[in-house]
């Protein structure tokens, strides 16, 4: 069987599309299928899936979430629900209360316990204090668990952060 689109190559991918209860069968070659799949991904991509998840967010009033816009990049939560992508790092602060439950739904958790960048000039200044606080706690735990290599790594991170903070304060 030849490919329905180019009519040249052997069809190796067989697609069934249902649009308005109309069933169409499509037989494609590898090359056309690849192009088609990019096309379909754009039509029905992660955006829709995420939007579906985000809809579940209880207590979000439609009007409020559509009015709320990121002060930095200008996208609204409604925009995010449509495209599935945030506009900038500031969006995470702007939409914090909505994203918190969304992240939990996606990852099963909304608390980061992984690594921290060596140089942090965090999104919000307040956050820097939290990072330091967190690191000090981690350091304490590492020492208690006698994980000295880990402790040394955390100590260096704290020093680095404090250095950055001092620099910023002197500015």
């Amino acid at each position: 069987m030849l490919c329905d689109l180019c009519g040249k190559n052997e069809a190796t991918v067989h697609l069934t599309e249902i649009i308005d209860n109309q069933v169409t069968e499509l037989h494609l070659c590898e090359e056309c299928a690849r192009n088609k799949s990019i096309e379909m991904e754009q039509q029905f991509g992660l955006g829709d899936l995420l939007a579906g998840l985000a809809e579940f967010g209880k207590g979000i009033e439609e009007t409020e979430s559509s009015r709320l816009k990121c002060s930095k990049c200008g996208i609204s939560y409604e925009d995010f629900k449509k495209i599935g992508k945030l506009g900038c790092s500031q969006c995470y602060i702007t939409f914090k209360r909505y994203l918190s439950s969304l992240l939990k739904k996606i990852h099963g958790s909304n608390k980061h316990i992984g690594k921290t960048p060596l140089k942090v000039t965090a999104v919000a200044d307040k956050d820097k204090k939290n990072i330091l606080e967190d690191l000090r706690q981690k350091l304490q735990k590492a020492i208690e668990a006698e994980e000295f290599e880990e402790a040394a790594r955390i100590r260096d991170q704290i020093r680095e952060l404090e250095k950055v903070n001092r620099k910023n304060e002197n500015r």
Partner: protein
Amino acid sequence: MRIDDLINHTSEWLKGSGPYSNIVISSRVRLARNLNSIPFPHRLNKKQGQEVIDAVRTAVEKVDFLKGSLFIDMQQLDALDKQFLIERHLMSYEHARPDNYRALVLEKSEIISIMINEEDHLRIQVMQSGFSLFEAWSIMNRIDDVLSEHLDFAFLSEWGYLTSCPTNTGTGLRGSVMLHLPALVMSRQINRVLSAIAKLSFTTRGLYGEGTEASGNFFQVSNQVALGHKEEEIISNINALIKQVIEQEEQMRQHLFTHQRAILEDKIWRSFGILKSAFIISSQETIDLLSMLRLGVDLDIIKDIDRSTINRLFLITQPAHLQKIENKRLSSHERDVKRAEIIRKTLEKIS
């Protein structure tokens, strides 16, 4: 180094060496990172796009691992070059799209590549031959540390690294392993394995990653969860899962070898026969037959041919590679003829 130089070069991850390289083709980790004060790639204007590229370029020069890397402006590549890089797994289909301001950092041995302004400002990839996730992660960790000294990464202590899509928020880490599972496919056990993988919130994809379906005997398994676990934990979770899949495939190979020897040998030798004698062959047929040939080598049924030769055939028989070798555009039919010729010549020497 130029892109054309890569053609005579076998990607590091295709060496066919490393732990469990009879079943695991390659191990890959990638990190998503963004710069703090610049909009995410899909919202960039020209000036900001260039700003990201310049900042990453300067930072990359500080990383020892990346000395002598190729720095490519995507706008200067034609469609064939882009396809060529995708076939070598050095970038994604997404990155080949003509919009936005994209660039690619390519380390000499092709172990490390960085896509700039794909879905995130940085998508760093480390790829190794065989089952070596921890090793790949340890290289990645060091690259990330150095970059984070020179770039201002978007980060919140509560949610970790901030990414354009919240599915990557947290560690921004994805580990994936490319598996060759012919025995599980042949014995129709594969769906059981794939659905178990899905239940544990891992995903399975095809040869070319995101957006491609798992087909034939090759499967790429990766984690979905990026937040709430330490990086090492994410890596060791995938590692544990993959170990079990490897075990299942190994057992099934042994089972087929002992109980269905004739069927197995028939499939393998027929594949060898077709590959050695065909004058026209499509890329899908090539993948399927080379998969059988590889199984033959893994089970020591076919001798005198090594895994790296088969891996190299997988690589260079892809459409863009064939056209690069011939140094001209080839129609689909011309490619099928050229592909058969290259395979015949390579296998000729083997009895």
